């Protein structure tokens, strides 16, 4: 890692550690928690969609299963909610591998369509398996992780998960696993011809991506203390995750961070300032970024700073 990047990343982490102590209102802390949660979701999706080039539109399924697992375990068993956070990804992992085993037979847009189907299947199961999930009524979670009403403990938990996600992406972008995923994204036949087991590595990417998404889901359930299918399993959530990664910069470490900050902050800001018009402005913002920054925000930043002005899809940010 270069000196500049080291200073930048440790500086950002320090800033994030002190941020909630400066921004003391519950609302601003809540927004920060959301931004961090979306950094986790964007980074997790980016491992599969950005690095390996397998565009999934079904990640809400993994988020939702993680959230429901945490919710059901916490409210229907005597296990500690902390155990639930760990069990979420453990439950998602075999499901993700099964999904991969089926969907990776398809390529390109057909793969993407199949992931939409996976997301919808999981949503419908959650909606109809009332004895376990409470159906449309959802699950209320108690007890909560912490007894007080402070948001700070939640903030530091999600900050830890976010830092871990970004560090994982950074490690990937320099190591064999990351390069193998990028090779698969660029050309699967070429990848095979230089010794890469493409099926195996796509499954690894999916497993990492889905597990991390499930951790985020489990955190979400314990933070909001309520889950139902319209909150944790909608297609719109899958789309939002993808938009974030693409707008930030596909296949880069910094992309999902910038994407999450821009989209979450702007949607919160616009909701307050423009009430009903917020979605319109949000849409315009998306169009502007896609039109004028084809490499995502990170590509735009690099152009301005004239560093690494090459292909924006390279993973070196």
């Amino acid at each position, binding site marked *: 890692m270069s000196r500049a990047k080291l200073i930048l990343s440790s500086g950002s982490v320090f800033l994030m550690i002190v941020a909630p102590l400066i921004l003391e209102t519950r609302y601003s802390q809540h927004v920060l928690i959301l931004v961090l949660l979306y950094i986790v979701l964007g980074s997790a999706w980016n491992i599969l969609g950005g690095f390996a080039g397998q565009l999934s539109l079904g990640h809400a399924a993994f988020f939702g299963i993680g959230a429901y697992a945490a919710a059901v375990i916490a409210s229907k068993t005597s296990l500690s909610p902390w155990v639930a956070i760990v069990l979420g990804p453990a439950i998602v992992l075999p499901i993700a591998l099964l999904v991969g085993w089926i969907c990776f037979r398809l390529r390109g847009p057909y793969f993407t369509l199949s992931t939409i189907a996976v997301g919808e299947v999981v949503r419908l199961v959650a909606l109809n398996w009332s004895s376990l999930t409470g159906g449309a009524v959802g699950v209320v979670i108690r007890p909560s992780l912490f007894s007080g009403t402070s948001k700070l403990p939640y903030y530091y938990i999600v900050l830890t998960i976010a830092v871990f996600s970004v560090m994982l992406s950074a490690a990937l972008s*320099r*190591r*064999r696993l990351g*390069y*193998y995923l*990028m*090779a698969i*994204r*660029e*050309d699967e*036949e*070429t*990848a*095979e*011809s*230089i*010794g*890469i*087991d*493409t099926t195996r590595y796509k499954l690894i990417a999916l497993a990492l991506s889905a597990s991390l998404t499930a951790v985020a889901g489990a955190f979400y359930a314990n933070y909001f203390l309520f889950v139902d299918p319209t909150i944790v399993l909608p297609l719109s959530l899958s789309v939002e995750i993808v938009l974030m990664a693409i707008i930030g910069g596909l*296949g880069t470490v910094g992309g999902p961070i910038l994407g999450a900050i821009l989209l979450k902050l702007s949607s919160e800001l616009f909701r307050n300032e423009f009430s009903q018009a917020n979605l319109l402005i949000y849409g315009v913002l998306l169009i502007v970024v896609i039109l004028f920054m084809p490499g995502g925000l990170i590509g735009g930043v690099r152009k301005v700073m004239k560093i690494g002005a*090459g*292909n924006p*899809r*390279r993973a070196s940010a």
Partner: protein
Amino acid sequence: MLLLEVNNLTKRFGGLVAVESLSFTVNPGETLSIIGPNGAGKTTVFNLITGFYQPTSGQIKFEGVDLAGIKPNKIALAGIGRTFQVVKPLRGLSVFENVLVGAFARKGDRAEAEGIARDVLEFTDLAPFSDAIADGLPIGMRKRLELARSLATRPKLILLDEVMSGLNPTESREAIDLIRRLRDERGISAVAGVEHVMQVVMSISDRVIVLNHGKKIAEGPPAQVIDNPDVIEAYLGRVTP
């Protein structure tokens, strides 16, 4: 021991017989050319050897091991490298990264893999272009990058599918030189598929086999094969007096 042994290899696509009862061998350290007009079955033979296609019948042995049912990535790891006729660079990655990905096949550690990559880039004269993005390279360099990426996997045998097509005379000479050095300096065997650049065939091959409509019609040293009446007929058609 023979490096590669192909016995009675046949591949049918529906009613079309692309390769028919083809047998040939490659010795260690030898450069063999497979020549033949467009559609003779050269690329199909390469796809069969590298596991991208499964043969309809027949057998392929590499270092005495039958390759039946083995996946392309395992065949690459066993020591058979290949280039693609229509070049397939990892477009978004730099020249260096393209070669680095190949090197990761042998070394999981990045520093060691980088060592292999630098060595291969020097060998193929691509080192000055290390940071260029593969997508923007001219065709001559893309062909060389195909070779470099494959070389980084440390193959014992490399299959070169039309490495000369589309090259200008200067680039051709450089490529010929490179293929010679492959054998002379690195001891890597090669099977080169060549459509019609006879200069190449004459200057790089220890031995030549000629394919026409998927069948072997001649085999031998280059000078002898080129004078063979069947070969001339396959390329130019029958001379009717």
